[in-house]
């Protein structure tokens, strides 16, 4: 079930919120059980292929967690290894087997084409459970109640595309229902949900249409000219940000309606002044996971400067592969790893020479790098990536949108210019997306009075919004604007439009 579907918005969500608030005041265990059941129903509705996989994975990790808590090393360590390896094995089979078998088959020219369907949310719930096992091993404190553990993993607002959460962040909140006021939670949650839905259907989806209309012929070998290539890269850059941050806002908003705060996942990443800052603002819960459970596990900065750089690069490569089984994801991760490495080197070596990059130059350079790096992320293969990159540097000539008057002038000048894949009507939504991403306050700044999400230690917290005009509050203006935004966004829910991160 998608957050941006009428079935979710008008049936599932209201029923779950109403029943939860009716039940939670009488019995917390019943409310927890109800939410766990609803969450599983939410998954089964959208995952008809492997509905058992989540249940099996939860049971396996729950048993491992109990074992780790009740035993001492070396048994506890062994159980931790068993749990982590088991999780990674499941991920390898369901997410990476197609790719690896396909590559081997291609090498030996074998006709085998495995087609294992990717289970919904597998990357997210696997990482959440790995984090849980490691935390349990370090603190010897695990969830003893199976239903509560089931809810922790399957909780529907975060199940399919995150944020990746820690047990200690979420579960204690379920045990403090008296502190909550349902009206305020629902009001704030609806406001945030409206912002997220609007980001998705009003900005991400229209930009996605443009990006697809250019990446698709590029994948067929049609050479993409200058403006087309830039349009493809820019629209995808806008699409992926508004799609994923829109999803995260909706997830936080839905959870807030149930009185539970989830960790903040985005903090205006396109305003970053360098790539290190970008990763402290983009998909924060994944960055945090990679830092805590990959980078630090590899040795972090404890084993010398050279090893630190290698660890940094390796962490980002793993982050790239986590997104998908493909060479282009590996390329994307490697590019980000190299960029992080370069910035770190710059900080270590050059900063002493008092060379300070102006903030605006840093922002522009970071945005340009991220933009170029999204091209392999979106491309199905290296040929497509090369095609778009080639177009961006002008190697494939020029194209202009299909405007008869412009083409008439160009024809008279005998200029070899082709019509572009996009139309002029598609440019304004891109510009709106860019302006919002660069200069508007973000969701948690707008909603800062409600403290809609949890901050992650070590990651940049949202500064106060620059202008009070955008600030939401408990007042008529906010109620009216949120209702209007929600209505406009809900009216645009027409066709089936998945979130990009559902595929990871």
């Amino acid at each position, binding site marked *: 079930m998608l957050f941006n579907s*009428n079935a979710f918005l008008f049936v599932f969500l209201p029923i779950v919120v109403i029943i939860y608030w009716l039940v939670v005041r009488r019995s917390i265990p019943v409310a927890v059980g109800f939410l766990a059941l609803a969450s599983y129903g939410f998954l089964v509705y959208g995952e008809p292929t492997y509905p058992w996989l989540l249940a099996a994975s939860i049971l396996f990790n729950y048993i491992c967690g109990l074992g780790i808590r009740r035993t001492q090393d070396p048994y506890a360590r062994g159980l931790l290894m068993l749990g982590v390896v088991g999780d990674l094995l499941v991920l390898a089979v369901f997410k990476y087997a197609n790719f690896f078998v396909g590559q081997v088959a291609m090498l030996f020219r074998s006709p085998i084409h495995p087609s294992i369907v990717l289970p919904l949310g597998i990357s997210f719930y696997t990482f959440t459970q790995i984090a849980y096992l490691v935390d349990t091993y370090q603190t010897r404190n695990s969830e003893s109640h199976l239903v509560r553990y089931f809810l922790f993993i399957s909780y529907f607002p975060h199940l399919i595309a995150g944020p990746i959460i820690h047990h200690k962040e979420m579960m204690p909140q379920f045990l403090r229902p008296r502190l909550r*006021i349902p*009206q*305020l939670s*629902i*009001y704030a949650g*609806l*406001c945030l949900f409206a912002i997220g839905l609007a980001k998705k259907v*009003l900005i991400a989806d229209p930009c996605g249409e443009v990006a697809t209309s250019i990446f*698709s*012929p590029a*994948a*067929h*070998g*049609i050479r993409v000219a200058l403006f087309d290539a830039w349009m493809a890269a820019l629209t995808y850059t806008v699409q992926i940000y508004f799609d994923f941050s829109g999803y995260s806002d909706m997830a936080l908003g839905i959870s807030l309606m149930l009185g539970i705060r989830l960790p903040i996942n985005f903090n205006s990443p396109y305003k970053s002044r360098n790539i290190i800052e970008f990763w402290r603002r983009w998909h924060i819960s994944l960055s945090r996971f990679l830092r805590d459970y990959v980078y630090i596990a590899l040795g972090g900065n404890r084993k010398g400067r050279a090893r630190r750089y290698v660890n940094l690069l390796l962490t980002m490569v793993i982050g790239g592969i986590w997104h998908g089984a493909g060479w282009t994801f590996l390329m994307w991760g490697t590019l980000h790893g190299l960029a992080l490495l370069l910035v770190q080197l710059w900080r270590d070596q050059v900063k002493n020479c008092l060379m300070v990059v102006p903030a605006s130059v840093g922002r522009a350079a970071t945005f340009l790098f991220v933009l170029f790096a999204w091209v392999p992320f979106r491309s199905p293969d290296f040929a497509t990536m090369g095609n778009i990159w080639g177009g961006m540097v002008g190697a494939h000539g020029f194209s202009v949108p*299909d405007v*008869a008057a412009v083409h008439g002038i160009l024809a008279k000048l005998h200029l070899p210019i*082709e*019509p*572009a*894949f996009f139309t002029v*009507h598609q440019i304004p939504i891109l510009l709106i997306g860019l302006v919002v991403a660069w200069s508007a306050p973000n969701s948690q700044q707008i909603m800062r009075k409600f403290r809609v999400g949890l901050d992650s230690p070590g990651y940049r917290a949202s500064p106060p919004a620059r202008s009070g005009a955008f600030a939401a509050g*408990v*007042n*008529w203006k*906010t*109620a*009216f604007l*949120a*209702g*209007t935004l*929600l*209505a*406009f966004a*809900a*009216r*645009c829910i*027409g066709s089936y439009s998945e979130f990009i991160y559902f595929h990871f």
Partner: protein
Amino acid sequence: MGAKLRRAIKAYLVVLMAVFFVIYLAPVPDLKVATALAPVMSPRALNALVVAGNSVVTDLSACDQDRRKLPSLLSEGLHKKVIDFSFPGQTVGQGLDYTTFALRRFHAGAAVFFLSPTLSSRSIPDLQTQMFFRFAASPEYEENSLQQRFKPDAPLLGPLTSHAEPFTYKNVRYPDYDGIKDIYYSAEKAAMGCPETLGKNRQFIEAFYWYTYVSQPVQNGNIAGLGKLQEISNSIHKRVLFVLMPVDYDDVQSMNYALAQTIRTRVRSTSEALKKENLNLLDLTEILPADGFSDRWCACGHLSESGRRTLSERVVQALQTSTESENHTRTEEN
């Protein structure tokens, strides 16, 4: 938190929900429809030509070097502003909504309505858009009737566009449209290079031709609706040209001669039924050879760049001829 504040929050929550429902249910088109209709409301649209149709109008093959779409070619041929209402999957009903609105309420001077030869489509826009078109343009065709919403498979509020259902052809069971896209289209697309071939799974392509052109009943309600649009346009002295789009008979014939003949017979009967409604009809179903088509895997009549050029020349010719004859008639009347 005090009881007073709790009451205030409750009031704001009620306001939020009330605003949501009032705006959500208001009889206004959704943003996509509103954006599509906006150009025709501009004074610059005076005497513009509006174009309605499905993906056959909008589609460009991945192999096309000339990426001008039909509306652009028409604009160049007629030296006239063209407002393009077409979009993939547009049904006859949606085309009627847009065209009637543009001709009846605004400045558009003429319309070209590109029709799939089967007219087999069913769609109900969401309730708000449906009410908008009823108030603003009253296109009278069967699918627009509010009674459709009370049928068992129709949604009370949301839109309904029926896609290909599962079907069986020559003892092979094929899935619904989503399944076809996932299983067959994606395999064909992956195997398709440039220049295009006739496709990989010819058995499926033949089956889908049969499904598209033969298995579905012709929607008589749509024929009456098109007749009504012709009546409306005659009454306000605006021209509508209905164009029956080409069928890739060469391709079908190469796979199954009998199937091609069956399609021919059905298309002819549709054409005759449309003529009986006194439509200004241009039947182009047989004008294109095989290289005029692209995307054979979808068996849906998508056009290649040469196909688009030929088609646009014929439409431009038809529009110019009818303009000349109208001018001639007016001169004689004077």
